[in-house]
């Protein structure tokens, strides 16, 4: 084990997979000579050269489509979007081609591609650069959606995503790149897609959080324990699709209360889907209506104070837990 940042854990995963499989290559804006906009690909171009780490022009639809074609030809592309906000330009290639190809070709063409990059808010990058888009991609059959919340998960899940024979949407978080955790250095270390992780055990209330809201939920859980002696369980699904609803439902059956925290907007969100699935599978175990915390229904404000108000926060989580626990 070594302590490292999420950024370095992702870098390690990419490097190990580049070594492990010569069909793996990285492509995106500034990923090669500049070491990546957020330095996730630092050193990889120097080590693996022009053919394995490719700087693309600012043409998201173009290089995403190039990636889909390369995957059809047998390669395993890892396409970096500088942020997921820019993937909207490439949505046709992701949704209409990568996601549909296996089905529409009658099983002829697997698309073993990973689209990755930071998702959600950063620091005052305003409305067009702060969006959390997981619900949009999770809506389409044919796409897997992965959202790690710590360095070990980031490494293990990215390696699984690269080895997966189907398109994977891999969503990181800019605010989290510097967060450190213990990471296994074993090059065979992987975390299977579709398996949730209980980040903290508790008995009175379940919080389902993902990506940036996981550390928030853990901090809230500590404070709630101190202030109200309420024991909170934090479940991180890690993979949004396929969703490990069983782990969440088992937790709710134990605690009888559920708060879902997410960085996306609330309407038709992943939290809304989890809420529905829990109603389907654990309705008889609920003691309170499920509570959801999402980013406010507004384009992200630029102003620092307004941005903070729009996003989920530890205080908002504590208030929600108190509400479902009738405190």
């Amino acid at each position, binding site marked *: 084990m070594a302590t490292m940042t999420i950024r370095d854990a992702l870098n390690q995963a990419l490097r190990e997979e580049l070594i492990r499989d010569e069909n793996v290559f990285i492509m995106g804006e500034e990923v090669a000579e500049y070491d990546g906009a957020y330095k996730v690909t630092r050193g990889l171009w120097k080590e693996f050269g022009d053919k394995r780490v490719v700087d693309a022009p600012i043409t998201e639809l173009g290089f995403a489509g190039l990636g889909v074609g390369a995957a059809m030809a047998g390669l395993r592309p890892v396409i970096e979007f500088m942020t997921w906000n820019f993937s909207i330009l490439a949505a046709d290639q992701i949704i209409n081609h990568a996601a549909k190809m296996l089905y529409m070709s009658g099983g002829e063409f697997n698309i073993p591609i990973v689209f990755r990059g930071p998702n959600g808010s950063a620091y005052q990058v305003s409305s067009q650069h702060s969006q959390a888009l997981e619900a949009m991609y999770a809506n389409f059959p044919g796409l897997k959606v992965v959202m790690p919340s710590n360095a070990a998960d980031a490494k293990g899940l990215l390696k699984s995503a690269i080895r997966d024979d189907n398109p994977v949407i891999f969503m990181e978080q800019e605010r989290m790149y510097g967060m450190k955790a213990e990471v296994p250095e074993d090059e065979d270390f992987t975390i299977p897609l579709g398996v949730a992780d209980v980040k903290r055990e508790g008995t009175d209330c379940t919080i389902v959080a993902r990506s940036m809201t996981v550390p928030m939920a853990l901090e809230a859980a500590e404070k709630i324990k101190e202030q109200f002696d309420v024991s909170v369980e934090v479940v991180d699904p890690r993979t949004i699709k396929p969703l490990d609803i069983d782990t969440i439902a088992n937790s709710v059956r134990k605690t*009888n209360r559920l708060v879902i925290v997410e960085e996306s907007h609330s309407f038709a969100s992943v939290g809304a889907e989890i809420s529905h699935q829990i109603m389907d599978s654990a*309705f*008889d*175990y*609920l*003691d*309170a209506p499920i509570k959801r915390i999402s980013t406010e229904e507004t384009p992200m404000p630029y102003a620092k104070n307004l941005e903070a108000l729009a996003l989920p926060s530890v205080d908002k989580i504590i208030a929600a837990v108190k509400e479902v626990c*009738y405190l």
Partner: protein
Amino acid sequence: MAEKFLMPKLSPTMEEGQISRWVKKEGESFGANETLAEVDTDKATMEMTALSGGTLLKILKGDGDTAALGEAIAIIGQKGEDISALLSEVSANGKTAAAVAPAKKEEPAPAPQKEAVSAAAAATAPAKVATAPAAVQPQGRLIVSPIAARMAAENNLDLRSVAGSGPNGRIIKRDIEQALAGGGSTAAKAAPSFTPSTVVGASGYREEPTSQMRRVIASRLTESIGPVPTFYLTREIEMDNVLSLRKAINASLPDEQKVSVNDILVKAVAMALQKHPYVNASYQDRTLRFYEQADIGVAVAIDEGLITPVIRGANLKGFVEIGAEVRSLAARARDKKLQPEEYTGATFSVSNLGMFGIKEFTAIINPPEAGILAVGSATPTPVVRDGQIVVRSIMNITMSCDHRVIDGATGAKFLDTLTRMLEQPAMMLA
């Protein structure tokens, strides 16, 4: 914002209320907890208080008018507000929200601020919930969290006996846990406390699932004779010893504390009930409810009818204390000042018409109680004792029994115990 002020539920059984008089006038402002009007319910005159401050903008139902539960009786709000829309709405559909309001008013949980009024009694109700669940059971739709409903079903707990502490009176897991824990702990507390002054609120109880046999008895007899299949048991009791006991006690008491035969009778009934749990019980569909203390309803005639104020924990109280309570409750019953919790939730009742010269009669059970005792006059009567004709004060009592709970022999044994306690009052201590 101006809003309609609806006729609140001021007693558990009321369906409509009559405005006795408005204490506040139109245009007058009021603070939280201030009395707005006095309302005659089916049982008593109640003060209708405001939950939050405001101004009485318009009285819709004047003094003497009657309004159904949930019917708009006034418009309240802030001075100078335009209430024309509300007025036309009220005249258009009269009974606005009548269907919704009664259920909401009964919520035992602290009412949301938006609720404009609540009975003065309702504000004090939650504190009593633990000991008197039956008294606050909502008659409207029960709001229960799924896990609470599931736990109640698994534990054979009647949700109507549980007060909800969640929003809108929602019964939540915590309430079920408390209800399940409460049964045992109140029993443990009740036993050692023999000091009469500790009796507050209605009797706690335990419930046992009804046996198949009891269920068959219940359904067959109900088919035969109506919702409460009643039978009657009559017994003659020699009251001479009670009369001399009363004389001895009263000799040393000031006038205002003197006890009546009825006070001694209430005490004896309570003591006998303690020995016969099936008589101090209630049939509850899937369970039989056994009360821990004997809360005796004492029928009191008033001008407009009849009311049965309750002597809580009569088994724990002395003659003098029972007498004082009966006098105070009866006086307030005649003034129509009884609070709902003072005349509901008895575990057994006594109706005495002896003072009217009635020798023997039958009384009608006040559900969900399982029995009522009809008491006639104690009359000097020639009887045979040891082969000699002697004169004794003979009193006839007839118990009406709910056959779903009490069988003939059960009732007879209870009356036998009661007879022995009255014929030899020392047996009350035995």
